[in-house]
């Protein structure tokens, strides 16, 4: 059973849901405290987040930098629009590859649910093409696993 759902909605949205057994406060903190963020928001095995700056207050900025230890890397910058501890985060972000991708507006909700948390993350891209490009760059995150699978098939 997969706990994660990820769906497209209309032309410009992507909606992710995930259940956690921890309480909303813990899940919220894991999304706003750098020392916690650096431990899980990493993508494929082998990647690390050497830089994690996160000023979690309205108008505050964040910057996450990833590196694979072999010279590859990229970063995301963003700004927080609204924060309601421990239930809701609204922010805008873009990836730098190194040119910035179109802004992705994201609302993340943490709702108490059956003793744990239901997280709902709703992304809004400027248009369908930008959404496609965002998903395409996300593909890279899953790519190493795909290559490993390909290799095992040969």
């Amino acid at each position, binding site marked *: 059973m997969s*706990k*994660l759902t990820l769906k497209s909605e209309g032309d410009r949205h*992507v909606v992710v849901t995930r259940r956690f057994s*921890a309480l909303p*406060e813990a899940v919220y903190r894991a999304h706003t405290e750098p020392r916690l963020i650096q431990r899980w928001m990493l993508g494929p095995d082998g990647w690390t987040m050497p830089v994690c700056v996160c000023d979690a207050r309205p108008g505050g900025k964040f910057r996450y930098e990833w590196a694979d230890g072999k010279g590859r890397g990229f970063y995301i910058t963003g700004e927080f629009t609204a924060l309601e501890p421990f239930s809701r985060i609204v922010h805008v972000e873009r990836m730098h*590859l190194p040119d910035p991708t*179109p802004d992705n507006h994201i609302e993340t909700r943490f709702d108490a649910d059956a003793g744990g948390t239901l997280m709902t993350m709703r992304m809004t891209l400027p248009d369908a093409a930008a959404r496609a490009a965002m998903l395409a760059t996300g*593909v890279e995150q899953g790519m190493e696993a795909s290559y490993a699978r390909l290799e095992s098939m040969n």
Partner: protein
Amino acid sequence: MPSLDAAFTALADPTRRAILARLTLGEATVMEIAEPFDMTQPAISRHLKVLEGAGLIARRVEGTKRPCRLAPAAINEIDQWLNMLRHALAKNYDRLDDVLAGMQPKKRKGLR
């Protein structure tokens, strides 16, 4: 749509991802695409060929120019891309489960 493997290979390169990001802003000529890169036009053309071969971009002929745009087919491959993103996110959140399991609740001043 050519194989997903071809798309992955095409996306594995940061220059090609940057080119796709540029094309989300709209159609562009090779010269326009090459501008921000410290790279020759033939080098950019080779990248465009890979992207075209993977079905991620389409080109049309306009006089001597061959402007590029994101391929509708690529844009319509949302479901497959969603699957890959799902895979990547699933890994992150599985890791987050472990982080959460090890977290001590913040000290509270008595029960509220």
